[in-house]
């Protein structure tokens, strides 16, 4: 493996500063007030709305859209944050096309859903721009909770725990908080330092201390945390990547897509970032798309995504695939990397085309490539001893409880994590409520699973029932 080593053909400054500023700017510009009201007006305020069910954090979407329509985006933001305190980021990075907007009845009716993600961003940006943080902490309980990882799961958990009156310390391995929001998502989805701005906003709840560059296993141990804190939440995500082993895996000019994206996100001058002339990304998820599109935007001559199955099985959504191809990325499906060829640095890839049975069809391609990015999966790395695992991740129940008393987990380091910010936020939130319930067993009145009012429809008769039994089938 030669992660991060460059090939001689990589060049920086392939594109002008103006081109970089334009193409790495906001993918979906913020609505103005009129656009937002027009977009909000399209919402039908569905009964028992399918979009709510489709949202992992169960935001009352029709309610917040109605609040925008009624001229109160600030109230809308509160509705969103009650369920999802990272609603600002989720509005930017959620694959809404496979979540709320896919479920929208107008998607079914006319192939054009209510633009829920952009409306959510309009609401949350409105209140964040005004510098409003509408939550206060409950009276101090004197309890202390450790959170490992300042990514979406950890931040969500920390905010809810702090709001309930407990003191929180977050231990973060990297130099900055935010997790994948800061290091792992394409720049054009969250420009202008939004990830850090959101963390700063979230911390205004108070009672949360972040200790950066504290890695579990090397700088701190789970045993120590369990001794010093009343509860521990593990939300460290997936620190490792799945390796590719094969002929030529020692050539220079190849690396992990997550590292490429992280370097790009932390760069203060995109024009100084070198990129290959012929980039190939192996993988089919959103990380593969983010890496491919951004390498193209940096000025790579050709960019190809190699995916081993048929394109319609790519984990990245169809919308993401279309974004990639619209930027000039080629998607080569049913293609498996066999060998990396080059004199010291990667120069060419030998690729087998495969059938549905994953067996080579006999067709062999040779692709010019001087930069190879791997996005074939991330794995848990350095899990603490003593925790039961499930599929290489931390086993946890629906409340986030692990096999160790007093230890909860959520986000991508657990099996239920599905590489989505919004799912991690939900898990962190729900674990926080369970932590609170356990810590305050003497005060059950403080234990609500949700801050919000009960969702509309929750008290209605179950589907198919009416007040008139026997009058319909």
């Amino acid at each position: 493996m030669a992660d991060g080593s460059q090939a001689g053909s990589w060049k920086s400054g392939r594109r002008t500063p103006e081109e970089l500023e334009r193409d790495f700017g906001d993918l979906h510009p913020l609505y103005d007030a009129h656009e937002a009201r027009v977009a909000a007006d399209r919402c039908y305020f569905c009964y028992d709305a399918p979009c709510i069910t489709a949202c992992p954090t169960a935001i009352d979407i029709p309610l917040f859209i109605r609040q925008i329509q009624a001229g109160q985006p600030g109230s809308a933001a509160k509705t969103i944050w009650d369920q999802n305190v990272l609603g600002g980021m989720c509005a930017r990075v959620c694959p809404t096309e496979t979540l709320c907007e896919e479920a929208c009845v107008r998607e079914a009716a006319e192939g054009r859903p209510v633009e829920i993600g952009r409306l959510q961003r309009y609401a949350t940006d409105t209140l964040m721009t005004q510098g409003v943080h509408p939550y206060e902490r409950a009276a101090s309980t004197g309890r202390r909770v450790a959170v490992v990882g300042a990514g979406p799961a950890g931040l969500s958990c920390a905010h809810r725990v702090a709001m309930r009156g407990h003191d929180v310390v977050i231990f973060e391995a990297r130099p900055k908080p935010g997790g994948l929001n800061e290091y792992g998502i394409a720049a054009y989805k969250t420009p202008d330092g939004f990830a850090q701005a959101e963390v700063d906003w979230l911390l205004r709840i108070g009672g949360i201390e972040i200790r950066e560059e504290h890695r579990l296993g090397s700088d701190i141990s789970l045993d120590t945390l369990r001794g010093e804190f009343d509860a521990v939440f593990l939300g460290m995500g997936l620190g490792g990547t799945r390796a590719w082993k094969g002929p030529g895996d020692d050539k220079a000019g190849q690396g992990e897509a997550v590292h490429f994206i992280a370097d790009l996100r932390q760069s203060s001058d995109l024009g100084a970032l070198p990129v290959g002339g012929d980039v190939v990304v192996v993988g089919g998820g959103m990380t593969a798309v983010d890496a491919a599109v951004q390498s193209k935007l940096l000025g790579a001559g050709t960019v190809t995504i190699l995916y081993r199955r048929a394109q319609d099985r790519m984990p990245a959504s169809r919308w993401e695939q279309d974004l990639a191809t619209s930027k000039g990325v080629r998607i080569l499906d049913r293609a498996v990397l066999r060998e990396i060829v080059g004199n010291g640095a990667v120069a060419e890839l030998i690729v087998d085309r495969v059938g549905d049975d994953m067996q080579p069809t006999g067709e062999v391609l040779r692709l010019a490539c001087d930069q190879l990015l791997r996005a074939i999966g991330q794995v848990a790395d350095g899990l603490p001893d003593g925790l039961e695992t499930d599929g290489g991740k931390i086993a946890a129940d629906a409340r986030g409880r692990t096999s160790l008393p007093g230890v909860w987990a959520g986000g991508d380091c657990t099996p239920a994590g599905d590489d989505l910010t919004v799912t991690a936020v939900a898990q962190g939130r729900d674990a926080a409520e369970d932590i609170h319930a356990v810590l305050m067993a003497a005060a059950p009145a403080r234990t609500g699973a949700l801050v919000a009012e009960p969702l509309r429809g929750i008290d209605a008769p179950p589907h198919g029932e009416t007040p008139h039994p026997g009058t319909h089938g």
Partner: protein
Amino acid sequence: MADLTTDFIGIRSPNPFWLASAPPTDKEYNVRRAFAAGWGGVVWKTLGEEGPPVVNVNGPRYGAVYGADRRLLGLNNIELITDRPLEVNLREIKAVKRDFPDRAMIVSIMVPCEEAAWKAILPRVEATGADGIELNFGCPHGMSERGMGSAVGQVPEYVEMVARWCKKHTRMPVIVKLTPNITDVRHSARAAVKGGADAVSLINTINSITSVDLDDMAPEPTIDGKGTHGGYCGPAVKPIALHMVADIARDPECGNIPISGIGGVTTWRDAAEFLALGAGTVQVCTAAMTYGFGIIKEMTQGLSDWMDAKGYVSPMEVSGRAVPNVTDWQRLNLEYVTKARIDPDLCIKCGRCYAACEDTSHQAIAVSPDRTFSVIDAECVACNLCVDVCPVEGCITMERLAPGTIDPRTGREVRAEPADWTTHPNNPSVKVAAE
């Protein structure tokens, strides 16, 4: 293309679309452009008596009510009658009429409620060559505080009296413009008939406050922190206007007096509806003020195309066609039993019908776990609310139960013979009559 030529109380116009007395008809420049665009006639903005003209406020004159995407649904105004000198208006009216002899030129008038005032102005208007006059008994703001406009229109005796003066002092046809700010418009219309008026036009604008500025705690439009009621018009008032037009059209005491319909006419269809309920021409203001004079092309073409499709050869043939079907509630057939039907292929599963019926009506819609919505006939009273709230046109329809079938809600057999409230056993007056 159907011939849209209209003869209304002897006033001919190439089509039934007139611009109502309002800012669009305040001066020669506008009216020439309106005629060039194709409008069939205008009612010149209301003239006042000789002397220093009225003055208008110098702040906002209009307030608005919007629908989706800032679509103007309702407009209110506090503008008064023309604030230009009488002789200027008369000179311009004469010049325009001379150049557009085929167009209807009606002049709106509002002078104090004294015979001398009307006697003084009528010959001067007649001298312009105008085709007729419209008596402004409708404006509900400003002038009404001075005993004119709706202050006259609200007193049937005044309506009759002034109409009679006008008929006495001019040969021009007299149209009385009615205010909707009364309890029963038929009283005003009957007064106009008694006074000898040739026609009525309605509705004028409705007393209104469009909104309140919640920061300044003042009604809008706001003038230096204060506001007053204005006259409401536009698409939002059309249903009210249609009702009042129909009420006059089917009132025996009004004696089929010709009607010029006004109130929210925005497209050809609105015009066709006014005609169907008894109007002979329609007057348009808000739509022109929103979109400009160019809308006349859609209106005339649309009305003509619709008439061609239906086989009508003249707007006068359309006029009043729906009047016989306007009746009293007590005459509605109670044996007409319908049930809502939801087309599962068109349904997009939003559940609005369910929420509306379950929360606010008759709990007559069932929903299955896969969000299939269906009607419970045993509960459905056919109120139509589900149809009205459904976002998909044609998805929910009302299906009539055939005579002879049992209505599962009442257990009664639906009868072929119509039966209404006047003969219903629950009607107390029926019982009294039977005793």
